[in-house]
């Protein structure tokens, strides 16, 4: 099992313990409120399309080419969901992130609580993260 698979499995195990719908959402809200905040500019370019609330994504990498993402949303539920994704992805290499495939919400077992339009927002955030990784890899290879 690679890094992402390990992290995603841990999340799934956590959610499996929360059978009640309300408990799962409350857990998402706690993730949103305990997640480290980072101020960044909100632009059209870093807006996450498809989210029913307003959400933004900020992408970074360090000298070892490890990638870090920060998200913010006016909705605590969306912020919590995005927090789950960034928790899984942060500190990994672009290759590891690009290697991740599948439906994130399905894998962690909470897809049934989300309409397809809301899932699209999370998919869109993951695609945006992957796009950043692709550009990073391309530049890395060029150099």
């Amino acid at each position, binding site marked *: 099992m690679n890094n992402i698979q390990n992290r995603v499995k841990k999340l799934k195990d956590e959610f499996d313990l929360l059978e009640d*719908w*309300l408990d799962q*959402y*409350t857990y998402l*809200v*706690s993730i*949103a*409120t305990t997640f480290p905040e980072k101020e960044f500019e909100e632009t059209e370019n870093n807006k996450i399309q498809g989210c*029913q*609330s*307003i959400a933004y994504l900020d992408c970074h990498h360090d000298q070892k080419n490890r990638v870090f993402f920060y998200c913010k*949303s*006016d*909705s*605590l*539920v*969306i912020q919590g969901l995005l927090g789950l994704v960034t928790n899984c992805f942060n500190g990994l290499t672009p290759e590891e992130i690009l290697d991740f495939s599948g439906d994130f919400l399905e894998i962690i077992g909470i897809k049934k609580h989300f309409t397809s339009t809301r899932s699209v927002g999370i998919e869109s955030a993951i695609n945006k993260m992957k796009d950043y990784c692709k550009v990073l890899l391309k530049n890395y290879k060029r150099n």
Partner: protein
Amino acid sequence: MLFNPYEIRKDFPILSQKINKKQLVYLDNSATSQKPKFVIKAIMDYYTKNNANVHRGVHTLANRATEDLEDARRKVASFIGSKNPKQIIFCYNATDALNMIANGYGRKFLTPGDSVMVTRMEHHANFVPWQIVCKENLCNFVISELKENGELDFSDFKKKLTPKVKIVCISHMSNVTGIINPIKQIIELAHKNSSIVVIDGAQGVVYDKVDVTDLDCDFYCFSGHKLYSSMGIGVLYGKESLFNKMEPFRYGGEMIADVFDDYTTFGELPYRFEGGTPNVAGAISLGAAIDYLNSLNLEQIHNYEKELFNFAYEKLQEINGLKIYGKSENQTGIVSFTLANISNLDCAIFLNGMGIAVRSGTHCAIPIMRNYGISGTIRASFSFYNTKEEVLYLVDAIKKVQNLLLAKNE
């Protein structure tokens, strides 16, 4: 006889279910209404006994289906006070009807320099098609503003109603604030100005009595699914003189008179505007919904909905941090609100957790949201099958959401 919503609820099978282990409280009626069992049975009967394509057959089933469709047209005409069923065009929904008018009438008759006036409270369906046609026909797109309480600003309306305004487009009732516009007065003013008036009745037909003849309405449209019938059926009413000048929006089968190699002549009203196989089951379901509403007494329904609205408004505004948008004597059915420091989406999600269905977002009315300087609202919309008990449950649930989310946010 006293209006008893608890008895009426028995007519709506969907309402008895539990959502997230709680009794469903359906307060998203302005998005779509639930269907009484009589409407469901009418659809079932049509498909189990009478289904055939209409107009073109001579066999018994085709005749039955055609008769049922035309019967539904007569019921709709009578329901909205139209003297002639030919003035009732079946389409998909109010959005479809408004696009038909914008493209079939607006595009044909608007000339450069003309103006079309809409209001700040319009649903996108009565805003965007006109904005596009105005751009293409080099016309002015004029927006009539609202007062702070959400009512139409009549002085602004009159000021902007210049001789250049050829078409006035206004909703009978706002789908955000629930405010009912004085459409009779607006039509009179517009007609004195030689403007025609397009009324979006998507919400108005549900909460207010409509009499297109008394209103002297040029065009009036609505969706069947908000009026307790199935989705995919809508109505466009228009004056015959206007329909006769209007270009069909959808070319195809039943709408033609004759087809030659180089030109086509079009059929009579209403079929000229009903190209393609219509939604026969939908039309029949609308006829059944109208029968059902008439059997309950429309005036009693509207009075009860107004009473429920007043009760909800009063109880909701007592909640700390809750702000309601729109305040008018002529308001019913819909309460739009925001909660301080809680996103609309989060509130709607947690209410759903407690079995309550409300809507959050812009409600396809970004121009009014921008006017209020907000990204959206939470909207609770009531029907005659809702109860005061449900309103109190909503109030209690909102307080629980506040306790849960505001505590987390501190």
